């Protein structure tokens, strides 16, 4: 059992380093922010959920936004950017459809956008854990 001085020392130790690292890591790689904070179970579940949603969206031939011609495209692009490296890798590999032609591709587009938004929530959660706002 940790004594009071030990707890303070442990807390001070965990507060060292770049405070935004879990936020940035969590955005770039789903779950990485939680892994950095040694929240292995939470990180694994987040990684599987967000990456799984993104991959299923791509498998459904969902659209990956490459530019913003109007407001809706801009919002879709903002959502897609939330996926971090997954988005950039998908762009480089040229996966995803340019045009939505079947119903499932429309579902896929939404899966990809929502995966990005969920990843942003997960990254902010990692930041809150890092700052001590959440335990």
């Amino acid at each position, binding site marked *: 059992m940790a004594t009071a001085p030990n707890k303070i020392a442990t807390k001070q130790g965990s507060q060292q380093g770049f405070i935004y690292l879990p936020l940035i890591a969590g955005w770039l790689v789903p779950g990485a922010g939680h892994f950095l904070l040694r929240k292995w179970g*939470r990180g694994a*579940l*987040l990684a599987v*959920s*967000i990456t*799984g*949603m993104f991959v*299923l969206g791509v*498998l*459904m*031939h969902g659209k990956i936004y490459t530019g913003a011609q109007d407001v809706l495209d801009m919002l879709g692009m903002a959502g897609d950017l939330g996926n971090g490296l997954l988005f950039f890798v998908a762009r480089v590999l040229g996966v995803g459809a340019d045009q939505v032609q*079947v*119903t*499932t591709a429309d*579902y896929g587009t*939404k*899966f990809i956008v*929502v*995966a990005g938004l*969920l990843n942003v*929530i*997960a990254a*902010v*959660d990692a930041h809150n854990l890092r700052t001590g706002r*959440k*335990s």
Partner: protein
Amino acid sequence: MFQPSHFVAVVLFALFASTVFGITMRETPRRMIRYGIYCFVLFVGSAILLSWVMFLIAR
């Protein structure tokens, strides 16, 4: 190409979104699980309910 039915797509969407909501919105594992299940039921339940409403309107 993965071509799920509308219902399977709803269930998959609800599963992934509920998992993230549960982990990020609550602090203890027990409350995370409860909140995740609550979100999942609301996602799927509201989709089924709205489907029936639209079906009855369209008749």
